[in-house]
C-alpha cells in the first residue's frame, strides 16, 4: 500500500489527504527527514526507518497552534481545509531551509500544491507572516515537534 494509505488507514493519521493519487495535486504532502514529499508516490514499505512528519506532528500541544499554523488562521490562508495540511507542511519545509523567503520563493515552494479555494493569495501571506514572526522570535522552525506516533 502507499505511504498515504498506510498513514491514513493503518496509523489513523488522517490529516494527509488523497486528491489525485497520481502525484500532481500535492494534497498528500508529508515530510520525510524534514523534506516535503508526496505520500501517494511512495509505498509504505519504502518508508521503513525514516522520520516522517505529518500535520499532526506540528502542533506544540493539544489545543495549541504552531506559529505557522496560527499565521494561516490570521490571514485565512485556507477555506475548505483539504489542501491545508499539505500546504502547511510544504511551508514548514521551506521555512526550515530558508527563514527569509521572498514572495517568489514562497510561490515556488507551494507551486506543487494545488488549492481550488483560495487563489493562493492568503496562503502566500500566511507563510510570509509566519516567516516574519519566526525571525522575530528567533526560534528555529525545525524544532517543531515531529515524528510518527
Amino acid at each position, binding site marked *: *500500500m502507499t505511504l498515504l494509505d498506510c498513514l*491514513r488507514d493503518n496509523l489513523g*493519521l*488522517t*490529516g*494527509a*489527504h*488523497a*486528491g*489525485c*493519487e*497520481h502525484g*500532481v*495535486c500535492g*494534497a498528500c504532502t508529508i515530510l520525510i527527514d524534514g523534506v516535503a514529499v508526496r505520500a501517494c508516490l511512495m509505498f509504505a514499505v519504502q518508508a521503513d526507518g525514516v522520520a516522517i512528519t*505529518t*500535520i*499532526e506532528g*506540528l*502542533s506544540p500541544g493539544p489545543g495549541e*497552534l504552531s506559529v505557522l*499554523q*496560527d499565521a*494561516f*488562521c*490570521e*490571514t*485565512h490562508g*485556507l*477555506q*475548505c*481545509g*483539504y*489542501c*491545508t*495540511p499539505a500546504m*502547511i507542511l510544504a511551508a514548514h519545509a521551506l521555512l526550515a531551509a530558508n527563514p527569509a523567503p521572498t514572495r517568489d520563493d*514562497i*510561490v*515556488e515552494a*507551494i*507551486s*506543487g*500544491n*494545488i*488549492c*481550488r*479555494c*483560495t*487563489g*493562493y*493569495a*492568503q*496562503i*502566500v501571506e500566511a507563510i510570509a507572516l509566519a516567516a516574519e514572526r519566526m525571525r522575530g522570535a528567533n526560534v528555529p522552525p525545525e524544532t517543531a515537534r515531529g515524528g510518527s506516533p
Partner: protein
Amino acid sequence: MSRFRFVSSDRRVREDRRFVVGKGRFAADVMPSGTHHVALVTSPHPAARIVVDKRAALAMPGVAYVLDGRELAAATQPLAAGLDTPQVPRRPLAVDVARYAGEWVAAVVADTRARAEDAAEHVQVIYDPLPFVLDAEEALAPTSPPVHAEHGSNVLLDRTFVWGDVEGDFAASPHRLALRVKWGRSSTVPIETFGVVASWDPWRELLDVWASIQMPKFPDQLAAALRLPGSSVRVHNDVDVGGSYGVKRGIKHAVLVGYLSRRLGLPVRLIEDRLENMQGGDAHGPERLFDVEVAFDDAGVIRSLKMQALDNVGAYAGRSPFQLGKPVGAIVGPYRIASVQYRAIAVTTNKTVQEAVRAFGQSPTNYAIERTIDEVANRLGLDRLEVRRRNLIRRDEFPYTIPSGTTYDSGDYHAVIDKVLARTGYGELIEARDRLRADGRLAGLGIAACLEPSGGNSAFEPLLNPKNTTTTWMDSCRISVDLSGAITATMHTSSSGQGHETLVGTAIGEVLEVDPDRIRVVRPDSLESLPSNSPVGSRMAIMLGGAAFHAAHKLKAKLIAIAAHDLGIPPDRAIYREGGVCDAATPERRLGWPDLVTIAHRQFHRLPPDVEPGLSVSHVMQVPTGGTLPTADGRVQMYPCFSFEFHLVLLAIDPELGRTEIARYLVGHDCGTVINPKIVRGMTMGGIAHGIGAALYEEFAHDEHGQLVTQTFMDYVMPSSHEVPPVEIVHHATPSPHTVFGQKGSGESGYLGAPAAIASAVNDALRPLGISVNRTPIKMAWLSDLIAEVKARS
C-alpha cells in the same frame, strides 16, 4: 466608524483552527466498523448495449457483492430530474445501455478498496457498441442518434422567451452585430473527490449517511430514490466538505451505497478515485455555444439583445439544465437593455453528465455578454470602457427591473469603476499595455463588468418546468441558551470552506452584542434539522445570516419581555445592552445575563404568563422577494440581491509560444455590507483562480471516439500558485435593502467576471493582428498557431 460592532470587522474564521492541525473530518475520514468499499466498473464505449456477468468477480478474495444496474433499478426510483423528461431516467448504474464512456455499469463491494478494484477488473461486460453523438449542434439535428431512444430526440429543453418589443427595437436601431462564442466544458474540480458512507441499521430502520455534499434536498431525494420515508434517512451535516463550488451533488453515489448497505447489512463507502471522478462523477460543467445578436446606436448604446444558449448536457440530466434558466435573472448583465429574446436549448450527447458549477451558468453568460460589449465598441471605434459606462444602469435607476422580470436591488456600478481607476488610471494601464507591445509582445487590456446574482431561489425550476411549482426557498437557525448561560446556535447543512460557523456567530453576536467567538455553532443531522437548501446560489450570507439574525432578535425580544415583566416596567422602557436589560428610567435596576438565564430556566414564578420556559428560539426564513411563480411569458424574480464586480486585466502574450502572462489584475467588488472581510477576499481570489483556469487552461476534452482524453490532472491542468497573479481588490458597498445587514452574496465572486476579463484582454492583444478569439479555454499552443497563421498570411 462602522455602524456595526462585529459585522465587517476583520475577525478570524473560527473553522480554520481545526483545519490547520489536520482535524477536519472529511467523508473519507468516516469509517464505521465493518465498512466495505466500492469500486466501479465503467463503460469504455460512448454508447453500447451492455450485459454484465459478475460471476468471476464474485469469486475474488474479499468481495462481498457485485451490483448491476438492473438489480438496482428494480429496487430504487430513478433520480430526480429537474426538467419534465420522464423518458430520460437517470440511475446510478447503467441499465442495459451505457450512454457515455466512463458511465458506471457495475459496482463491486469488497473489504478493501484495492480488492474491490482487483475484482472490478474481473467483472465481464459484453458491450455491443451503438451509434453515438458528441457535438451539441449535431445532437440538435433530428437525424442524430438519440441518447435516449424513448425520448425520441436529444432535445431536453428548447424554450424561447421574448421580453419586450425585440423586433421593433432591432428595426429601430441603426446597427446590429452578431457573435458566436463557445464556453468549453470545464468545472471547478475540487481537490477532494466526492465520497459517501452509508450505514443501514435494520433495527432502527435508519440509514446513516456521511457525504461530501453540497446539494439542496439531498436527504429527501436520497430517501425518495431508496423508497424510504425521509425520517429513515439521517444525513450527518457535520462532515467537512473539501471544496465543492457547486459540483458535489452526489445523489447517484449516495443511492448506490445506500442500497448496498441495506442489501448487505454492512456500512458501505464510495470514495471516488480521481479517474472515477473525472470520467463519471459530478466533475463536468457547462459546455455552451452562444449566439448573440445586439441592436445598438451610434453611441454604442444597446437597445435590444437576442441570445441563444445551446448547452451540451451529456448523457443524462439532473439539475444541470437549470443552469440555462438561472441566468435569466441577470440576462442583460449590469446593462440597461430594453428588450431581450432568449432561447435556451439543452441537448443530450454521449458525454459525461454535466453537473452544477459555481454560479450555475452565470459565468458563461457573462462571458458571452462581455464579448459582445467589446465587439460593439470595436465596431464603432469607441473605447470599450466608455461604451460600458454608457450602457451601465445608473445608481439613480435602482431598484431596476430588467426585461425578464427580475428587479436588481441596488448598485452603483459607475462608482465601483471610478474607485478602481482611482487606484490606477485607465490611461496608465493603456500606456503599460503599449510599452509591453513596444517590447515585442502582444498585450491587451481586458475589461469586464459583471453581476453576481445572490440569495438563491429556485425560480428557474418552475420557469423551465411548469409542472414544478416550487416557490419556497428557505433556511433556518435555532438558538439555545443553556443553564450555564452559554449560547449554542445551529445550522442545517454541510459547508465546504465558506466560514458559515463564523457567519452565524457574527450575526448572532451582532444582535445580542456578545462576543461572536463565545457562540458555539453546531450542525444537527437531517432528522434534527430545520429546513435548509444548502450553500448554493451564493445564498448563505443572506439566508443563513438572515435566519440567525432573526432568531437572535427573537431571543433578544424574549429576554426583554422577561426582564420587563420582572422589573415591572412596560417593555419599551426595557433597554437591552450587551446581554443585560435595564430600566431606561433607572438604569441601575438591571438584570444581567445570568439573572435572565436563571429566570428562564428555573424560576417559572418570575416568567411572564405567555412566555415559554427555557431560552430556545428558532427562525425559518423564506428568500427575500421570492414566493411567486413565473408569468406565462417567463418573467420572474430570480434572485433577490445583485453584487457587482469590475475587472481590469493587463495581459501579455509571447507571440511565438502563445504563453500568456497576467501583468496586472485589478478588481472592484461590491457585495453590499461585508460580514467578514477575510472570507470575502478569499472567495474573490479563489473565484479569480477558477476563472483563470476556465479561461486559459481547463477543459474536459473528448476525442472523436467519445473518449475523455483529460482523465487525470496531468491533462486537466489547473492553476498553481505560479498562474494566479497578485490581485488588487477595491471595495465598494451598496447595501441591499432586502437583507438584515445589507449584505449580498460573494461566494461566486471573481469567477463571474474573470473569464470574461481575460478573454477581453486576449482579444485586445490580438486586435492589431485582426484576430478575435471566441472560445474558452484559450490554450497556449492553439493561440500560437492562430497567430502564426495570420502572420503567414500577411
